[in-house]
């Protein structure tokens, strides 16, 4: 990997006057705020999250920073866990599911595989709908169209049945509606007319793709989340405007942002709103330093999220589940593992050291927080190893107690080996192995070679693990972003306005003419233009060999079927290692992403740093033994300075570790570009 010349010119922001873009990331433990100001300066704030009403913490962060109403804020972009938490805590709307008669149990049948191969008592989490809240409708579409017509009287009967159940939201999902939506349309229209104020989500609108279980589940999630998300966003928008903020936007799982009204109508697309902001922020840092192939790792308090940016864009993922509920909407690819700073280490019965999934959370937190935690966490191990500085409080308020950390870590001692340092080294090694596996799942498992990518670790603890993870994956370059602890909020502040549209279009590629392709994209392009005026539009096709069940999404840069085929063959070979000669290729779905970029942050404030020499030396324990590391102020580094490992870069919101054999160079953006010496 060739990193950009640190002296290369930085793109200047395009501020339209004295305006501010503010990103607010409300996480489980901390609420982070990043304000991008005129001239590219970045202001950063971290406050404690207020779970009962996230808006309180959000406005608290604004107040602390002295923003709005005193400074005019052009736009506030919000990354929210409201949808995620509603799913995790099962606090969504009471949903009635309207479905094809004979198939009322789809949500309970799932795909019939069991929850655990060998634990026969374990079951899947129950669906979001009660079985008594399913209304069956006499109708049936098949592959070629109507098999059983939907009678007017049946529509009226179904509407009455739904009304009698007094739902807070309704999901409609009929068989084959991804291809033949007429029946769903009739029922949805009748329900909307009869039950004003009750949101109705129809599967052909939410996810028009085949596989009835996944589509029905996703549609149900949409209905389940919509009232809560809509209420929250409506109130938030009112309050935000009351403070003189001109506009509110919300981050979606796919890394774009929507105005509140649009977001409320696509509530299920907010399920990964939080982590998506981090990937967007990582991409921006990549743009600033001139790197387009990034493996990203966001290490937070309870978990670590791996993702990647390739060709300068985050990678999408159409599948997956949130909180055990299948949700098949476009999302930024995120692989979550339970290896966060608060993850608890323990020895299993066989003497193997395990990290997570149990976490000390914010309360009591790691033992070194001194809030009553007794069990050793990854953060405790880092403190014992000398990677963290007990003298620097976290987020301005948490002071670290080395004695407590050492006691907790030593409690694993007798079985695992000798002294606290050795046990702590084991804890970080296991945490790194868990994270490395997540990084491999998003890269190697998708046919992307991490050795040709740059690692971008962020979150409070991520940059401590950068060198070690790069080693494990054979990577040679790392970018430590400016303000790694609040990169998600930075991504929010700078995020593009983006909408993703999808249409089912099941056709053999060989039988298509260029005009067919242009014609099929036309309605999607028109809708994209109306929803995000002035946007750049990207076209994609989900392709597969005829008969396959999983598609590869490829960009469509021209209407030429031969070119689409060639692109697909190359992508299939890269991902799966083979590409059938002469096998027919078919398109399954068309996708359009419309985006309007926000101004890029300049990160120029960071270049004003003046630190050209280490502030101190500290003894640290590394994989190769004890060493003396130079200690640098991460947030004040002067551009062009080179730092040889072992070195600790201690910032206000995060700490980075350069291991021996690695050399960092401070980029004018404030990022540190780390390469093998």
């Amino acid at each position: 990997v060739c990193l950009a010349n640190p002296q290369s010119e930085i793109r200047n922001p395009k501020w339209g006057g004295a305006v501010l873009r503010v990103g607010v990331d409300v996480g489980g433990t901390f609420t982070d705020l990043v304000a991008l100001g005129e001239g590219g300066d970045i202001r950063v704030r971290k406050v404690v999250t207020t779970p009962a009403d996230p808006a309180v913490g959000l406005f608290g962060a604004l107040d602390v920073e002295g923003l709005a109403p005193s400074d005019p804020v052009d736009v506030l972009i919000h990354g929210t866990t409201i949808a995620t938490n509603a799913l995790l805590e099962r606090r969504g709307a009471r949903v009635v599911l309207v479905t094809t008669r004979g198939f009322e149990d789809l949500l309970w049948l799932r795909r019939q595989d069991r929850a655990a191969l060998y634990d026969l008592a374990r079951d899947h989490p129950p669906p979001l709908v009660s079985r008594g809240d399913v209304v069956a409708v006499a109708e049936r579409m098949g592959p070629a169209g109507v098999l059983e017509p939907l009678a007017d009287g049946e529509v009226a009967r179904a509407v009455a049945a739904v009304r009698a159940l007094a739902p807070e939201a309704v999901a409609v999902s009929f068989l084959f509606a991804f291809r033949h939506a007429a029946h769903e349309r009739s029922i949805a229209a009748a329900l909307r007319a009869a039950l004003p104020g009750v949101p109705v989500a129809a599967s052909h609108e939410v996810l028009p793709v085949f596989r009835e279980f996944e589509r029905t589940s996703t549609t149900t999630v949409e209905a389940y989340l919509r009232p809560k998300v809509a209420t929250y966003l409506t109130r938030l928008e009112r309050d935000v405007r009351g403070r003189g903020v001109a506009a509110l936007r919300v981050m979606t799982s796919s890394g774009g942002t929507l105005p509140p009204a649009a977001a409320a109508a696509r509530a299920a697309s907010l399920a990964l709103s939080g982590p998506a902001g981090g990937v967007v922020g990582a991409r921006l840092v990549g743009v600033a330093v001139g790197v387009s192939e990034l493996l990203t790792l966001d290490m937070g308090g309870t978990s670590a999220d791996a993702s990647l940016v390739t060709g300068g864009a985050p990678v999408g993922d159409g599948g997956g589940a949130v909180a055990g509920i299948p949700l098949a909407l476009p999302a930024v690819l995120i692989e979550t593992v339970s290896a966060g700073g608060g993850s608890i280490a323990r020895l299993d019965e066989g003497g193997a050291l395990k990290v997570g999934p149990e976490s000390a959370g914010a309360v009591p937190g790691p033992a070194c927080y001194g809030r009553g935690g007794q069990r050793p966490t990854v953060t405790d191990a880092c403190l014992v190893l000398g990677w963290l500085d007990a003298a620097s409080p976290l987020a301005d308020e948490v002071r670290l107690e080395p004695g407590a950390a050492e006691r907790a870590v030593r409690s694993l001692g007798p079985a695992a080996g000798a002294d606290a340092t050795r046990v702590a080294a084991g804890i970080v090694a296991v945490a790194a192995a868990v994270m490395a596996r997540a990084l491999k799942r998003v890269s190697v498992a998708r046919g992307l070679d991490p050795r040709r990518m740059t690692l971008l670790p962020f979150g409070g603890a991520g940059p401590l693990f950068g060198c070690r993870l790069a080693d494990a994956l054979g990577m040679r370059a790392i970018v430590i972003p400016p303000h790694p602890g609040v990169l998600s909020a930075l991504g929010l502040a700078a995020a593009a306005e983006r909408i993703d549209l999808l249409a089912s279009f099941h056709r053999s590629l060989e039988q298509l003419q260029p005009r067919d392709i242009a014609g099929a994209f036309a309605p999607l392009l028109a809708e994209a233009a109306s929803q995000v005026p002035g946007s750049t539009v990207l076209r994609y096709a989900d392709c597969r060999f005829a008969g396959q069940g999983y598609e590869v999404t490829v960009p469509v840069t021209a209407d030429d079927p031969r070119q689409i085929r060639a692109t697909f063959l190359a992508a299939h070979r890269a991902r799966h290692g083979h590409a059938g000669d002469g096998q027919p290729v078919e398109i399954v779905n068309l996708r359009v992403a419309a985006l309007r970029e926000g101004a890029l942050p300049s990160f120029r404030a960071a270049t004003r740093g003046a630190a050209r020499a280490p502030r101190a030396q500290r003894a640290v324990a590394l994989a190769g033994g004890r060493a003396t590391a130079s200690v640098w102020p991460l947030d004040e580094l002067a551009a062009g300075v080179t730092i040889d490992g072992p070195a600790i870069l201690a910032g206000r919101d995060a700490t980075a570790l350069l291991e021996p054999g690695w050399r960092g160079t401070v980029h004018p953006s404030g990022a540190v570009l780390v390469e093998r010496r």
Partner: protein
Amino acid sequence: MSLDAVGLEVMGHAFASIAEEMGLVLIHSAVSPNIRERRDCSAALFDAEGEMIAQAAHIPVHLGALAESVAAVRGLDPRPGDLFILNDPYTGGSHLPDITLLGAIDLDGAVGGYSVVRAHHSDVGGAQAGSMPAGAREIFAEGVIVPPVRLTGEVERLFLANVRTPDTRAADLAAQRAAVERGAEGLRALAARYGLAATRAAARDLMDYAERRTREVLRRIRADGLTATDWLEGDGVDDADLAIAVRVDVADGVFHADFTGTAPAARGNVNCPLAVARSAVLFVVRTLLPDDIPTNGGVQRAVRVSAPEGCLVNARRPSAVAAGNVETSQRIVDALFLALAGGGIPVPAQGQGTMNNVTLGGVGWTYYETIGGGQGASRGAPGPSGVHVGMSNTRNTPVEVLELECPLRVRGYALRRGGGGSGQWPGGEGVTREFEALAPMELSVLAERRRHAPRGAAGGGPGALGRTILNGATLAPKVTALLEPGDVLRLETPGGGGWGEPEQGAKR
């Protein structure tokens, strides 16, 4: 070198992620619904001595039996980089539709391990479309037999000339081959990174660790001559019940299952090679272990299986075996749980105990589906409903996929309300799935628990019996038929047994 606690975990993740990748390559690029939708396939990595290092957790009946495949190939003087294929149940296979591809991994010019991928191909030729014919009397009727041979272009041509859907098979084999290659690449990358000797030592240590943990758990189990007998409901030729008898002894951390007393090999195809019986025993042992013990060759070291030569669970060529892999394996599990429960060991009540194998096919197409049912309840938890139990864990074929690709219509798909056994913790409910034929086609059903209901445990009630109904008439457990357009086939799958006496006033 011996792994410390840390290295163990690190290398465990590394090997496991290779197996995971192999499975993903196969599922995401195969074309037949049975592999890509139902995931009737498994992937594993073996060491050069033929012990399993890691697996992708898919189908229990595959995973325990793969060691036999590797053993069969190791006898053929494998050279680094060789690719083998086999499906012969009497030399390393299970039943003919399960085609196994094995790559001898080239590590520094020597065979450093084996990358193994097994997938159920819903057509390997034979007397009937779908290659799961009820009523086969010899293995020759069940499809083309492939002993362990190197997979050359000519071998592939010979195989494809013997099946009804050669294009689909060729595409699935290409995906399977790519998955094998991905496993080889993964192990090579690991060896390049850590060194050959260290990688090898890590694999041994992981297996030693799993063996040690397994034996520790087994030492806490008291089982001295626990016996049980359960019944197979005919073999597809004769309808008479067939005994599956087992005796379990656990001594010095080794689980020994002996099948003396089991019926001799049957005339129909409910027979199985000992590999399948070993898989079933291994599955039962695995359910007794905590989740965090890796499933690898070390667990197998703590398991011994014996059965008289030529009996139903240790069959000899040319006994037919198609149903043995899918149905007899389930009954072995049931018999083992029954024996353990008799010794006071808290195992779950019996689950549906069948895979409800439905095979349909006509000109140019085949469809194979197994249908979930009720899981037996456990002490402390009701049995899950509508899931695969025991030796299978395949997914369903979505209705929309089925109707797009086969001349079939699904008229209904639902849980069987009230089908779970009563109990303090009730058993899981079975499933109903109703098909209408839209063209003439051949049907084969291989099913069980049509007259002997899944038993409850500790006073719990039995699960509902399964039923196979064609145009309103109930069919035998194992049956073949020709369907005409408009014919309606309805499967009602068994419920799971309940656990514990139902409380007064309990609903079920």
